[in-house]
């Protein structure tokens, strides 16, 4: 029966690819199939399936997941307000004149707004609306534009407090707890804040490389665009204020001053207040933004609900224990276990998106890996980099699918592959670098280790302030 659980993953992959049915429906169908076969064959007691309601209530009271609708709301508001457009225009004007400026500004805009957008989908929507038309006006081809927007939208995966980063941090914390109970180790359990710090150095490197590639791709492009309307003092002041607020919010989360959910809520309230005061958001616009937020939240939570059901079925079938045994006997030591896990993640990414991987694959795959590897933070950062690469992988990567669908005329797959190739090589290169040099994820650990230790009063205040299930 454990192997049947793995076969179900294959069933999901085949049905999703061939039929185009919503992934959450296919996951629920595979769960029902697994449960029925397990019960009929006598290997699964029906009572075990009764754990499903408790697991689903767990989703509804999950502190971290409260950030999801808030980030989605921020994304929907940004999509309707001229703020992103203003920041992009300022970025283009600040940089050196030429064809590279709009491309590099697109990367910068995404790095700044994508974490607040929270999801790759919201970033693609924002970049497709604000950046794509201007890049096309400046002579960029459809394939080049789609490739740039695909990669730029994935930057939010790495920069805190993106939803993918937070959810992976939570999933890795659970996996690490399980791994320590399996191995009997007593190391400190990895938390989301560790992951926020660990991922910053590779994220900075990726941002730099992606910016350089975007500028390099512009070397032959002629900047044929007419000079844009000059920026007023009010525009510049508003852009500076926005950047200051965003940096304060993102920095506050990265430094652990407040929780991601509070940063998202603050972003949402400030945007709503600003838009109301300036009169830039009509009642109809607000209604539409709220409806979009509910819609996107629903599509994400459908995945969470389906993945929760599916992992329960995999566990009652014993697939998780089978995978654990498989990894425990894998030859080649800890390095081989990590490399195998990354290959599995990237293979799964061909048919599953980042959220399904976090909810379906990570809970099964990571405990046995972390039981063999001492450096949980390194594994977590590598997983995040693999997830980022996976959403940009054509043809089924979430970011590629979204941007190809939104940018018209749709690019030919071969041209898109050619335009994406340097970016994908760069992402894979950074993944390989972190795989070879684990110290890269501990750069900020060392910096914080030299800082003064917390006083007992501060420790007590932090412990009391921590809400259920969330990591400060």
């Amino acid at each position: 029966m454990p192997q049947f659980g793995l076969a179900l993953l294959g069933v999901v992959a085949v049905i999703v690819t061939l039929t185009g049915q919503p992934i959450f429906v296919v996951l629920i169908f595979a769960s029902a199939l697994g449960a029925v076969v397990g019960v009929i064959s006598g290997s699964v007691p029906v009572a075990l399936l009764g754990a499903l309601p408790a697991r689903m209530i767990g989703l509804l009271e999950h502190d971290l997941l409260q950030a999801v609708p808030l980030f989605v709301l921020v994304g929907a508001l940004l999509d309707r307000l001229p703020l992103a457009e203003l920041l992009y225009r300022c970025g283009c004007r600040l940089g050196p004149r030429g064809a590279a400026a709009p491309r590099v500004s697109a990367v910068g805009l995404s790095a700044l707004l994508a974490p607040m957008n929270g999801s790759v989908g919201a970033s693609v929507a924002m970049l497709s609306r604000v950046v794509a038309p201007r890049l096309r006006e400046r002579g960029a081809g459809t394939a080049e534009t789609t490739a740039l927007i695909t990669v730029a939208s994935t930057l939010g995966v790495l920069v805190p407090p993106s939803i993918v980063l937070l959810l992976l941090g939570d999933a890795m914390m659970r996996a690490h707890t399980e791994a320590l109970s399996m191995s009997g180790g007593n190391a400190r359990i990895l938390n989301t804040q560790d992951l926020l710090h660990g991922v910053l150095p590779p994220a900075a490197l990726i941002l730099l490389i992606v910016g350089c590639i975007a500028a390099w791709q512009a070397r032959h492009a002629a900047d044929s665009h007419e000079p844009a309307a000059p920026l007023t003092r009010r525009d510049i002041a508003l852009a500076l204020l926005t950047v200051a607020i965003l940096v304060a919010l993102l920095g506050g989360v990265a430094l652990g001053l407040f929780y991601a959910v509070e940063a998202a809520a603050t972003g949402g309230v400030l945007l709503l207040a600003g838009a109301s005061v300036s009169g830039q958001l009509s009642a109809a616009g607000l209604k539409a933004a709220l409806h979009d937020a509910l819609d996107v939240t629903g599509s994400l939570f459908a995945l969470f609900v389906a993945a929760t059901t599916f992992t329960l079925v995999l566990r009652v079938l014993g697939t998780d224990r089978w995978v654990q045994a498989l990894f425990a006997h894998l030859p080649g030591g800890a390095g081989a276990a990590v490399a195998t896990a990354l290959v599995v993640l990237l293979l799964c990414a061909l048919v599953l998106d980042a959220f399904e991987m976090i909810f379906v694959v990570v809970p099964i795959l990571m405990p046995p890996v972390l039981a063999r590897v001492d450096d949980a933070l390194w594994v977590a950062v590598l997983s995040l980099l693999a997830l980022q690469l996976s959403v940009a992988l054509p043809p089924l990567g979430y970011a590629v699918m979204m941007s190809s669908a939104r940018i018209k005329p749709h690019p030919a797959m071969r041209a898109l592959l050619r335009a994406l190739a340097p970016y994908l090589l760069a992402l894979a290169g950074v993944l390989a670098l972190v795989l070879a040099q684990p110290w890269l994820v501990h750069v900020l650990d060392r910096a914080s280790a030299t800082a003064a230790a917390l006083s007992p009063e501060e420790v007590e205040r932090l412990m009391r302030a921590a809400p259920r299930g969330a990591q400060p």
Partner: protein
Amino acid sequence: MNTLLRIVDRLDRASGRLIAAARWLALPLAMLLFLQWPLRDLVHAYSRQANDLAQCLFALYVSMSVTDATRRGSHLAPRPLASRWAQRWHKALHAAGLLLALLPWSAFVLVSSGAQVWQSLLQREAFPESFNPGYFVVKLSLWLLAGAVFVQALIDLARLCRRGE
């Protein structure tokens, strides 16, 4: 048959109204979670109350959101191969998804959570850590979520049958 279709249309309108109302929950949710920080660090009071109330609103919001995404057809689905298929295959697959996945799954959740949710509702269960009232709303939201999925699946199935006639 006409009576059945009228019932389906009424259910559809009621579901649409409920969802349209649910979208406004995002505003108090954002406000409560925004206030949590100053309440905790500046006022030193009421932050748990704000958190618990936000928890209830969040659960209600999520319970309606899944069906909203279904009604607007915005669930994530890769379509490169499927777009070449004939429309009748899409309808057949849609019906199969409703009959073999969503209807049995939502019915199972409604039945298996029944006792737990009903008990929580009768006792007006409070939040276990803060003892603030309202935790039963979180459990009730599970019923709302599964119930909304079940009703929407029935509506969609009835519509598919009507078009197939």
